[in-house]
Structures are given as structure tokens and as C-alpha cells.
């Protein structure tokens, strides 16, 4: 019996589901041979009562979302958070420092009466989450690894080392050595330092390592010329929901 798999989205850009759909070639053939996709709004209309694995993309930012994700959780053996919004709250949490009414006003103006909103939060703040696929967007190789691990009965694990490790493995010149700044030293690896390899810096989309030395990282950023406000802003982009940006 192939496991029944479903995909759901909450507050997000659906980019992680889109990237999932970008899996192609032999990988796609093998994946569909291994699992049964029973619910996935972006590709078909079917649904099911019970899921072996439910992937949830997006953060929870409306009262109705709380009920809906609880319902999904109740009908799923495994619930896996897909992408930064579901994993750590992500960009949506940038509004959390505002009054919610003010936030609605800014976005919808006088149409705000048609909408409700609550401070955005990761899925794990509402229901228990079994595993996480980090990233904005996700790394599909990592998604496939986690799926394979689950199918093989292995506990999927995320690297608990920072981006620096894979950045060094990739042979990059450190962003700091280039006179710029980067969140890599405290952000969880697993992305093969894709942004730095492409000439940018780490924005922190994969969340913090388990035991980050935030004080030291802030000192480092300050040493490389950032003010306290700038340091906080840097962390806020993806990690508002964690304590580090406060």
C-alpha cells in the first residue's frame, strides 16, 4: 500500500509547493511510484479523510487557520511543515510588531472590514509537527531525502551545523572576508550555501541552529559595521518569531 500524501497551504506564496511540482524526470516517476498524492490543490481536486503524510506550507495568521490546521493534524499520521513560513513563521511574522488593526489598515485600507488577522506563527505553535523541511523556498533534494527517510523508517534529521560548513565545503570566499555581512554562522545548514555560492549572503530562511551563539553573532555583525538596529532588522526578515530578533 503506497502512503497517502496530501499538501495544504496557509499564509504563504505557495512557492514551496510550486518547487515541489518542479521535481521532474526520473525523480518524479520514482516519487509517484512510491507515494499516492491524494490531495494537492495546485494539481487536482481530489481529497481524502485520512493522510499518512500531510505537508503543510505557510504560517498561521487567521483564526480560521487554527481550526483548519488542527483538523488536518487530526486526520494525519505525520504532519510535516513545508518551508520557512510553516517552519519558523517566516516573512509573515514581520507584521507581528504592529497592532493587528493597523496592519489590516496598511494592507487593505477601507476594505479591512472584510478581513481578520492574528499575529502570524509557525505551524508548530498551533499543532505538533513531526518534521520540518526548512527554507525559502525549500530545497527539493532535502524534501526528497526526508520523504525517503520516512518511507525507509528512518527519522529524518536536519543538519545541526550552520551554513558556514557547507559554504566552506563549496569553496566560497567568506562574505565577511568580502567586506559584507551574513547570518550564515548561526543559521541551520542543509542548503549547500546556495545564496552565498550565487554571490549573495545568508538571509536566515532556514532558522537558527539548535544552540546558536546569538550574542557572539551580534558582536560579529557589529564589528563588521552594523548598528544594533541593523542587526535586529537582519534577523527579523525570517526569524521575527524566534527570540533572537527581540
Amino acid at each position, binding site marked *: 500500500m503506497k502512503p497517502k500524501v496530501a499538501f495544504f497551504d496557509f499564509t504563504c506564496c505557495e512557492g514551496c509547493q510550486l518547487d515541489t511540482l518542479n521535481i521532474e524526470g526520473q525523480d518524479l516517476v520514482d516519487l509517484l511510484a512510491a507515494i499516492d498524492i491524494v490531495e494537492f490543490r495546485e494539481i487536482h481536486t481530489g481529497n481524502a479523510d485520512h493522510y499518512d503524510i500531510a505537508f503543510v506550507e505557510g504560517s498561521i495568521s487567521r483564526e480560521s487557520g487554527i481550526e483548519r490546521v488542527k483538523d488536518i493534524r487530526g486526520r494525519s499520521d505525520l504532519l510535516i511543515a513545508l518551508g520557512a513560513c510553516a517552519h519558523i513563521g517566516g516573512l509573515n511574522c514581520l507584521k507581528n510588531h504592529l497592532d493587528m488593526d493597523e496592519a489590516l489598515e496598511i494592507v487593505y485600507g477601507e476594505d479591512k472590514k472584510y478581513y481578520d488577522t492574528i499575529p502570524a506563527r509557525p505551524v508548530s505553535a498551533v499543532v505538533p509537527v513531526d518534521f520540518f523541511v526548512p527554507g525559502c523556498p525549500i530545497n527539493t533534494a532535502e524534501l526528497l531525502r526526508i520523504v*525517503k527517510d520516512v518511507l*525507509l523508517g528512518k527519522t529524518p534529521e536536519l543538519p545541526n551545523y550552520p551554513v558556514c560548513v557547507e559554504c*566552506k*565545503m*563549496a569553496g566560497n570566499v567568506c562574505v565577511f*572576508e568580502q567586506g559584507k555581512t551574513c547570518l550564515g554562522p548561526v543559521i541551520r545548514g542543509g542548503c549547500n550555501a546556495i545564496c552565498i555560492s550565487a554571490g549573495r549572503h545568508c538571509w536566515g530562511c532556514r532558522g537558527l541552529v539548535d544552540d546558536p551563539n546569538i550574542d*557572539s553573532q551580534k558582536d560579529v555583525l557589529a564589528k563588521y559595521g552594523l548598528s544594533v538596529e541593523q542587526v535586529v532588522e537582519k534577523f527579523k526578515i525570517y526569524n521575527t518569531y524566534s527570540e533572537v530578533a527581540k
Partner: protein
Amino acid sequence: MREHSVLVVDDEPIVRESIRDWLTEAGYPVATAETGEEALELVATRDFSVLVVDLRLPGKTGIKVLEAVKAERPWIRTIVITAYPSAETVQEARRLGAVDYLLKPFAPDNLERLIDETLSSIPPEATVTTVEAPEAAPVAVVEAIEVKQSFVIGNGDLRALFDGLAETMDVIGVVARNGKYVYDKVKRFEDLRLDYDTTVHPPTRFLFPARERMLAVSFDGTPSAEATIEAKPQVLLGVHPYDIHAIELLDEVFMATHADPNYITRRQNTLIIGVDCLRPSPNAFAPSMGTAQADTGFDLLLTDLGTGYMTRVGSQRGADLLAEHTDAREPNDNEIASQKALLELAAQKVEVRLNVARERLPKLLEDHYDDSYWEEKSEACLSCGSCVMVCPTCFCFDVKDEVALNLKTGERIRTWDGCMLTDFAVVAGGENFRHDKASRYRHRIFRKGKYVLERYGMVGCVGCGRCATACLPDIASPAEAFNAIAEKAKIETARRLIGKVAPDNELYQPKPAKLLRVDDLAENEKVFEFQFEDGSTLGHAPGQFVSVSIFGIGEAPISISSSPTRGDTFQLAVRNVGNVTRAMHKLQAGATVGIRGPFGNGFPIDTLEWKDLLLIAGGIGLFPLRSLIQHVIDHRDSFGRVIILYGTRSPDQRMFLEELEAWKANAGIEFHETVDRGDDDWKGNVGVITTLIPGIDLSPAKTMSVVVGPPIVYRFVVGELKKKGLADEQIIMSLERRMKCGVGKCGHCQINGIYACQEGPVFTLADLRNLREAV
């Protein structure tokens, strides 16, 4: 180098390698073989003047090797070594032409002398030269380009060399990137930089990649795994000497033992062309680590003279490359002087230096294991692993399985890992054996300054300074840590000098002890019973010794002959042999002497308990052993069988006669005695003490043997015990050494690195195997 070469054949690595090292140091070219078969292969293909062969080899024995050598290479002189001499084998070896034999263990000097003597008897023409013939060298511009020589090549030559190499292999060199330098595949000669300061990452990644496939696995049906090795021919062009040293360390790690097939294949496909570093990076300290220049580890080594490149040839392949691609010529005097000046200038430019000799680092670190420095310094550590990821001497790795989506096949992948990463030492239960930043930080610095050096004999840090550059909180530089610890040590020493250490006032001050009674034991031996005048007890363990002072005459170390189980007094049995003992022999009951001690480690009672004991005393070896025998008798239930062997030269040398009778009568003791020469009244065994051993039936697995006697006894008794199947760890001895202070300072009792009065006088044979001065 001497002209005669030696082949050493022994299956025991320690013996084989020790002999190789001794003889290499003495200047002989040495080859080694582990088995008779391997030896004969070597003898068939190369010329040797002398063969040193162990008689007991697995497979083809030493005697068989001698036979074959005598038949095929009769001019080779052979020396046999054996730990188990017997008249038959020695005769047989001589018949087969062995010029001499040596008993194991033996001292380097003896072997070297024997070889010198052997060789001096060989007429020079009898031996063919032993230089390995290189492959026919291609026509060279310089008549013969030889290894270890230096030549000069021009810029055009270097380009020709580059182009020639690029035709057949990947050229890995240094290029500029993002304002820094990195190693990468170089396509165009114009991109190659030889004037770089240092690279962000070391070249070792091309020998030990960040990620590689070790196995292709399949678990569809019968699980199977197949080794996978990927290696392409490549040249590392422009490697700085410190990185050459790092590669030599990796060679040692991956090739010396448990030869790593992936590394070796890549290494064998790699040429190394070095370039001297004339522009050291601000964080580098290679001169302090002895790695600023390289003598080995390269095929070619360039120095950029500005007008051309001084090129040192490090291998035959290097020589061939020069001959094939360049118009190499001999350097002139100006060029030689210029190279020297450039290297000196480069060394002067180095800004970071160790304030302590690197040889002192292991001890210095060991003494500061618990220092607060590690905690303080690691406070800012991000655990980001950057320091270990850019380190040329780091080689730790992780191994993981990755499966294909078909869930039937997969790969076992090796990736870099590092001890500075949080989860490096975590086990499945969740326990992290290096759970805090301080312990990880300390571990890395200890690897760099101590562990690697001790394990592999090469420096664990080559002073490239990359970690210091990569570390964002600026805490990674080993030089900084080494200097900080050295500074702490200096301050501690200074504190000691200002008198904060409480003196041990009794260290050299003997304590008065009253002589209670004296008994004659033999012609020159007496036993003395003492008690401290203040009523205290000696508090000794069997096998320890004291220093006895006869004021005005001097002080002498004397082993304690009685067990602490026998009351508050202690007995010293003493042979009249020197000034102090002569004075002791004149003492009457009631006299006062001075006692310091007890000193030394004593017999390892914990290890002996619950075992069968074979206690062997030769002559006055009984004096120290008696303390153990008494202890064993008084705790008889804590030991298995107790067998005592006692040998003396003649019946009148036998001592403690009443106790000997009591041991004989004791049903819990098997007591056997012999004398070298009997007399008319002697009815017991006659023969040396070794003759008692073959008749004893032992259970080797649960027996511990304690042997005390003169050196000659050790040599032969050990051989017999080995025949009985006892391991080196099961044979315990007490060694005599000159002792003065008893507290590990005066230096008289030192055996190689250890002090007999501290770590001894009791040792296992296993301990002694590493102490070449011991017997």
C-alpha cells in the same frame, strides 16, 4: 649515506620499525619485510649487504629464508635475531652462514656494532650498489636532472610545463576570486597566481574532497556494497610549503596504517609542484611551526626569483617533467644568493610568532588541560566549524547513506566533519561527549599542538593562519592559544618563585627509625627490623623502597622486605655491597638510622588479585619479592594458585630458611627451589632458575608472573614465560636503578622518558617494550 644496505625481516612491527629507525639513523639504507616471502621477493629484485632476520616468522621461517639466501645470494651477510634462543637453531643458523645472532630485546648500539663489524669484513667489490635504477630518463637539456638538485627555468619554461601538464591532467592552481585567492581548476596559464599570500581553502580538498562516494550499495534482495573510487590525474601547482607539510601529514594519516584506498588512489594520481611563499599572510606563523620551507613532499618546488624560477627537484617524476618541458639550467651564484635572500626576507615578514618552542607545546597543553582559558576563550565561539573546514591538517569525516528514490539502491557518502561542530561527538541516545563549547575548543587546540604530533609524529598545525582569518569572533588562531597558555605557564612559574607554594619540609629530611633487631641471612646479607621513633608506621605497599641514611656515610635506596600486613615495624634485607650497606651491617640493635619514603609504585596488587601467581625470585630478588609473598600469604583467599620459584647460586646463598620451610609446608603454596651448583648436603634441584619453569603447568589466561632478580635472570626467565604463553602484560618485574632523591628530580634513575622512582621500580614487560634503556 653508507653504501651498504640492510634488509630487516621481522613480523613484529615494533621490532622491525625500531631496527629500521636505528639503522637509518646510523646512516644505512634500510628496507624492511614482514614475512619470509616478502623478504625473498626483495632479495630477488634488489641488492643488500646485510640481512637481519628474525628466526620465528609466520609462514616461511627465518631458517628457510637463510637457506634460500645462501643458495641464491651467498654474498649477503646474515644476522639472526631471536627472543627464544636454543642451541639447535643457533647451530642451524650458523651452518646456513649467519655471521652472528642477537637475543631480543637488545640495544641499538649492539646491533649497530654488530653490523659495522660484519660489513668491515666485506670487501667493497663484493656488494653490488643498491641504488634503485630509475627508468631511462628522457633526453635532458641539462645532462642529467637529478632528484634533490636545483635548476633555473624561465617564465616561458613554466608556461610550457603548464601547457604540457594541462594536456594530460587537471591543473589545480591558485586564482584570484572576490579579492582573495582560491584553488581551482586553471584553464589558462595567465590565470595562475604564484605570488599569492595564502588561499581561503587549502589544496588538501583535492586529495580529500568535502564529499565523496565510498560505496555503491544495493538493498534490493541480497544487500551488497561495492567500493567506489573516483580519481583523475591532477597536478597541484603552486602549493606553499606549509601546505606540503599538511599533505605529508594526511599521507601519514591515510596511508601509514589502514591504508585508505580512496585517498591513496587520488594521491597516486597527483603531482605536487610547490612554490615558496614570499608574501606571508598576516595571520600565518609557519616559521614557528617549522613548516615555512619543505625538503620533501613535492615533485618540484619553485622559488620565484623575479627573473625566473629556482626549481628544486623532489622526485624522479619531477626530474622527468623538467627534462621534458623546460630548458632547465644550472643556477649561477647570483641566483643561489638571490633565492636565499628572498626566503630570509619572507621569513622576516611573518608577523605572528610562537613565544614558545613548539616542542614544548604537548607538555604545556597537558599541564593546562583544566585551565580557565578554554572556557573564557570559547565563550564567543559560534560553533560554525569555519576553523576546521579551512584547516589543511583537519581530516575528520562523517559517513552517511543516501538512497535513491527507488528505495533499492544508494550510496555511502563521506563528508567532512569537524570536532568544533556541536554534534560531532553525539551518540544515538543523545549523549554528547563534548557537549560544551569549551571542551570542543580545547580539543581542537590540543589536536593542533599535542594529539596529532604524539599520534603521527608530525605537527598538527602548519601555521597557515587560515583558521584565524576565517574565524569571525577571532578566537581560532592556534598561535594565539599556544602563546596565551605559554604566558600563563610563565606567570605560574613566577608565582612559584615568589613563594606561594608550600614547601614539603620533610622531602629531604630523613625520619629517625630505631633498629629493633638484626639477623644474619648469609655471608654478606643481613635483615634489619626498624620502627619509627615517633611511633608512626611506614605505610608502604609491597614492592616499594625507602632511602636509608647513615649520617656521615650517606643515603642508599633499599627495597622493603616485609609486608605491611606484618605489624608496625618494617624489615630491610641488605647485602653488604657499598658504603652505606657496610655501615648498616655494623649496626647493633638500638641504633638510630634515618628513613625517607616509601617511594616508588610497588607491585600492582589490584591486578594480581584473583589471579594465579607465579612469583619468581633469583638471588637477592627475594628481598623485595618477600614483601609480596607475605602479603599474599596474609590475604591468601584473594588469589588463585600461588607458585613460588626461588633460585640461588649455591645452598649457602639461600636465605630466610625458616620461611622457606614454612612456604614448603604451606598447603596453599607450591614452592619450588633450585641452586645453580649443589654441594654434598644439597638434595634438591640443581640448575638455573629457568629450568624450573618448563615443569610448571600453568593456565596462561589467568596467570600473572612477578619476577625479581638480576638482569640475567630477566633475560632468560622472560623467554621461558613467553613460551608458556604469558603476554607481556602478564609479566611484572622490579628493576634496579641508581636512585638518589626518590622524588623524581635528581635524574639518576631515569629510563628513557620515565623516572624509575616515580613510575617504577615495578613495570610490566609491556611497559618495558617501549623503554629501550630498560633491559
